[in-house]
């Protein structure tokens, strides 16, 4: 029975996965074990995305299935059981831009790959990034932007981080619709990624990981 949920979730079999969780709970299976299986299942989804076997709809839908599973498990879980995380990443859509689809995919992939993600949402002012870096002690920051106006906001954010004296041992990655090497160089970020998997690779390269 162990591993069944991993398989069902990683193969995106929503109804079967939900039925399985209900049944397993009724049979007295430890909800923490089921949650662990769900996490393993999501990890496989992430790997399949990395190898281009899965695409964005698969990621989005796996998140939906996971939501359903967690909803069933939640009343049975003890509070504040924390899992070990690789490191912290602060992420948000740059000031002036309210797009979040790309950013959410990056958050999702970082999360299933074991990072503690501080998602600041959309239209995030530079100061908010600075404050959160200070609060969390995070060493990696991700800036997302779909519009060209985000080029300037990203540069302003990088500058604000530098002015706050936080730039030296911090890595900044950027991504989104029109971002390329040219824009990276303009903003002063350390790297850009063209998809969510590259964000994971960059973060792992900077703060280590499996």
């Amino acid at each position, binding site marked *: 029975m162990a591993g069944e949920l991993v398989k069902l979730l990683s193969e*995106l079999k*929503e109804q079967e996965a939900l039925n399985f969780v209900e049944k397993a709970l009724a049979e007295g299976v430890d909800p923490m074990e089921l949650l662990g299986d769900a996490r393993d299942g999501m990890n496989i989804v992430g790997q399949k995305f990395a190898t281009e076997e*899965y*695409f*964005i*709809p*698969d990621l*989005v*839908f796996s998140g*939906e299935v996971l939501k359903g599973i967690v909803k069933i498990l939640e009343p049975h879980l003890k509070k504040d059981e924390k899992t070990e995380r690789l490191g912290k990443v602060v992420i948000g859509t740059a000031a*002036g*831009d*309210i*797009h*979040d*689809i790309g950013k959410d995919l990056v958050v999702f992939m970082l999360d299933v790959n074991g990072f503690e993600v501080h998602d600041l949402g959309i*239209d995030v002012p530079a100061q908010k990034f600075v404050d959160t870096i200070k609060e969390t002690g995070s060493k990696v920051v991700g800036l997302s932007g779909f*519009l*060209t*106006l985000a*080029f300037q906001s990203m540069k302003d954010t990088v500058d604000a981080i530098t002015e706050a004296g936080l730039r030296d041992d911090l890595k900044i990655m950027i991504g989104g*619709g*029109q*971002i*390329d090497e*040219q*824009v990276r*160089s*303009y903003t002063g970020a350390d790297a850009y990624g063209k*998809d969510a998997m590259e964000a994971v690779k960059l973060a792992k390269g900077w703060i280590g990981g499996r």
Partner: protein
Amino acid sequence: MEKKWEEMSAEEKREARFATWYAAEGVEFQSPEAEAMYKASVTRFKDTVLMEKTPDRVPIFPIGTFMQTDLYGVTPYECMYDYDKLVSTNKQFLLDYKPDYYGSPAFIGSGKILEILEFQQYRWPGHGVSKNSGYQCVEGEYMKAEDYPSLIDDPSDFWLRTWIPRVFGTLAPLANLAPLTWLWEIVAVSGLTVPYGIPDVQNALKALLEAGNEAMVWFQKIQAFEMEAKGMGFPTAMGGAAKAPYDILADTLRGTRGIMTDLYRRPEMVSKAMERITPLQIKQGVGMATMAGNPMVFMPLHKGADGFLSDEQFRTFYWPPLKDVILGIASEGCVPFLFCEGSFNTRLKYLEELPRGSCFWIFDRTDMAKAKELIGDKICIGGNVPAGLLLTGTPEQVKAYCKELIDVAGKGGGFIMATGTGMDEGKPDTLHAMIDFTREYGVYR
């Protein structure tokens, strides 16, 4: 005797539509030179997109939304609320930069109208986003999963009584109307008029009148600009507009997340809905192009890009209805203008199915060498000048990029020099470099 429209072949219709565009009836040209420039630009576009002969040179079409006005320090907010400023800067842009084609300021729209109608699906400058920002879409499920049957059953009724009330705050009371098709013969008239007596519905209708009044003010300015631009010798390369049926679901109705879950939970509903949407898109594209007297049908493509669907999903959901729309529009003599955002590298193999000269593709981040190799012998391609390069690069970098594009993708014709995305902002030196360099280097000898 002239053939009747319905008896014409697709090619004959296309010739007739191009002739209308070329003739520019009603346009007062400012000089014989302006008229010659207009006609040369139309001919250049025709030669390029139909792939019938090598044009005189590469057509230049920098595609902008707020770029033309940003170059003069006019904010997106001013563009949406001060129509005079919008059109005067668009005119100045044509005089200063001399692109071959103008992008219509009609794309900008009126902020006042959006305010009157309390439009929910976008935020616009000064209304949810900064006055310096362009408009931005608010993702949402404006159509619920359970709405599929009513959309499929009667799209127009769904639009009027469900989608519009959700997307326009002041029009929410229109949900109280009865379906218009319930109105038949004398016995139905009085009863079906009752909803129009409801105070909320009356307020919604009053808001529509107010929006209509504002729209007339706006439209007169836009229309005057369009006539003047043509008179100055600049045609536009946009007539009608249509969308890929999948994008109507993914952008307009269900939202990105909504449609992606539908692919798993209710795939047959997605397919049925697209079957209903397909003929509507063909009709809209052809209808608008006919009104505009311009055969180009602008089709912005979004959610079919690389990564947004698996190959199987693309081939099942995205491509067949899109191909039907393209062929349907082409069969009426119009030319679909696929504005293909993101990258389409893994999709190019499907484009090979399209008949020669049936449409043209402006790419964003697609590999242009690969596109030229796979489809360039029968389908016109263009675009790919990156926004990042134009906004943060140097004129020399831009020239080098454009040279490479002309050498590779422009070889033998069938290529349009264009930005890969609708530009919100602009930088004078790099934009001049793109336009002026192409005018000089892009000549076919």
